[in-house]
């Protein structure tokens, strides 16, 4: 297991450095004068321009600039936002729990419903239920989620009035941010109805964000389940006289979940892409909305290092999924 871990780690570090190279290059590829871009001001007088060049280290050769950037990152210095003047790290850590809460809710929804739907579809293969479910899942997979979000807003929030249109909680409540997770904080606050209100705000964005992962997980579970149900050990389990539920869930599903686990990991990227759109539609104060607004405002330190942080996150999650995968499937661990 240690060799496996080290091998994976050996792949992870170059990827991370590659990402730093990419975010370093990103800011320098922007057309126009880098000082004006970095300072967010136009037509500086020549002396101020030269000073800024020196201060920002832009008069150095590129490799020195890159090393300086790496040094900065090592010290945990991710720069300051042009707009707010706050450190990028502080902004990220304030907003990230909102995205994480939304993503977890979406993944929970997608995981539970997707696995359940996939198992039933596999057991009732080629029935009308299977066909409808697979048709629905392909539709979900093809969904432009920004449109899906708007449609749900019209129908559920505006039409039926069941859920609020946007935000994380009603302005009536003054919730102290302990954990950053609104569901937890609203429970801790002991204000009447705060938790339910937070839940009602969360449900639509979670459905929207969870739609594509749900479709992928349902299809994946179905095909993995079909594969597993053909195995000899399933026949043995049946022949032993185990109850059908035990055969399906204990012997079948446990093995079918291995490929589904990888899909779970792969969905992290989809979730973060989706979060950009979902947060924009529902005015959800997370990192997706933050990045899009920063791009619109040309707030380059936020864009550069926000992207770096998200990439680091994706790399870490995939690394963890890889390890889990190796843990549950020894064949992978020993393969070269």
């Amino acid at each position, binding site marked *: 297991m240690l060799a496996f871990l080290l091998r994976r780690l050996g792949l992870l570090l170059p990827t991370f450095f590659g990402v730093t190279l990419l975010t370093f290059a990103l800011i320098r590829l922007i057309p126009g004068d880098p000082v004006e871009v970095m300072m967010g001001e136009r037509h500086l007088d020549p002396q101020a321009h030269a000073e800024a060049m020196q201060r920002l280290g832009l008069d150095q050769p590129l490799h020195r600039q890159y090393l300086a950037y790496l040094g900065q990152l090592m010290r945990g210095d991710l720069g300051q936002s042009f707009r707010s003047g706050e450190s990028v790290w502080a902004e990220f850590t304030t907003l990230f729990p909102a995205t994480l809460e939304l993503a977890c809710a979406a993944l929970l929804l997608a995981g539970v419903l997707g696995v359940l739907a996939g198992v039933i579809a596999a057991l009732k293969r080629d029935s009308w239920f299977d066909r409808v479910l697979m048709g629905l899942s392909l539709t979900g997979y093809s969904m*432009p989620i920004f449109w*899906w979000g708007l449609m749900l807003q019209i129908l559920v929030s505006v039409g039926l009035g069941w859920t609020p249109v946007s935000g994380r909680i009603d302005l009536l409540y003054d919730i102290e941010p302990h954990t950053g997770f609104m569901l937890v904080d609203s429970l801790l606050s002991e204000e009447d109805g705060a938790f339910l209100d937070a839940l009602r705000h969360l449900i639509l964005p979670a459905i929207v964000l969870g739609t594509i992962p749900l479709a992928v997980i349902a299809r994946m579970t179905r095909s993995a389940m079909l594969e597993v149900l053909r195995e000899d050990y399933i026949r043995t389990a049946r022949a032993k006289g185990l109850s059908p539920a035990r055969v399906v869930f204990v012997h079948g599903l446990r093995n079918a979940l291995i490929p589904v686990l990888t899909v779970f990991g792969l969905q992290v990227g989809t979730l*973060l892409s989706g979060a950009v759109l979902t947060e924009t539609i529902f005015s959800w104060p997370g990192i997706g909305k933050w990045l899009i607004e920063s791009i619109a405002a040309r707030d380059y330190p936020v*864009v550069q290092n926000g992207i770096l942080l998200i990439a680091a996150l994706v790399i870490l999650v995939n690394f963890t999924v890889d390890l889990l995968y190796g843990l549950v499937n020894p064949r992978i661990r020993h393969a070269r």
Partner: protein
Amino acid sequence: MMNASSPSPLGEFWQTFRRNKGALGGLAFMLLVLVCALCAPWLAPHDPSQQFRDALLSPPAWLDGGQWRFPLGTDELGRDLLSRLIHGARLSLLIGLASVLLALLPGVLLGLIAGFSPRHLGPPIMRAMDVMLALPALLLAVAIVAILGPGLANTVIAIAIVSLPAYVRLTRAAVLGELERDYVTAARLAGARLPRLMFVSVLPNCLAPLIIQASLSFSAAILDAAALGFLGLGVQPPTPEWGSMLASARDYIERAWWVVTLPGLTILLSVLAINLIGDGLRDALDPKLKNGL
């Protein structure tokens, strides 16, 4: 020798493909979209940018207050929605096609190189692809557009870059599988040079997964282009792009459902149709992958 009565590979492919009803439906829908795109100036009842000031937010013809002059109604500037959707088909298909080609060609080339040179050129190429995969697709596209600036060409470039790694990885994996086969050894022994080995011997045998991937990334390109348009970073108004049509209509969503519903439905149906075709292609070209995603 081939038996004279056995079907040609293309015929065999069509036999399997047409058994998939969903794929046939998808194909029919996409042919319709293609006809709309090709004949847009003749099919569209109006110029897509012409503003009818006397008919702002006019509802579709079958509703109260609708008029047959504008079968699907008009948008907030009095432009005919049907004409804009028809012209938008041009743009979406163009973006899809251009970005698939722009990703496919370098992707296949890099994948071939990585597969044929597993020790020297392969690892750096694959690590570079890992870096690109570490960034969520839409975010990478947004970042690229943020650098290059919004617009049609840059949308295509951004989407092509985002879909590049999939082609490289697929081609490399297929090449590594093929390289162990006897026919490659035979070709080598017969004195085939590297370019011939790459493009004539090996590449044709790797095409099945690449064709399937191309159909998947075609639909993803349409979705991503619409998402970029929706975020205001894609093709700029007044060009009738499906995603940006949605974005500009957002403020009228409560008064005029059709300005938001119809462009979105068009995107959904097109993407669904292409994915259905992709399913059919997979069943016909690569039976091993059947039932997978």
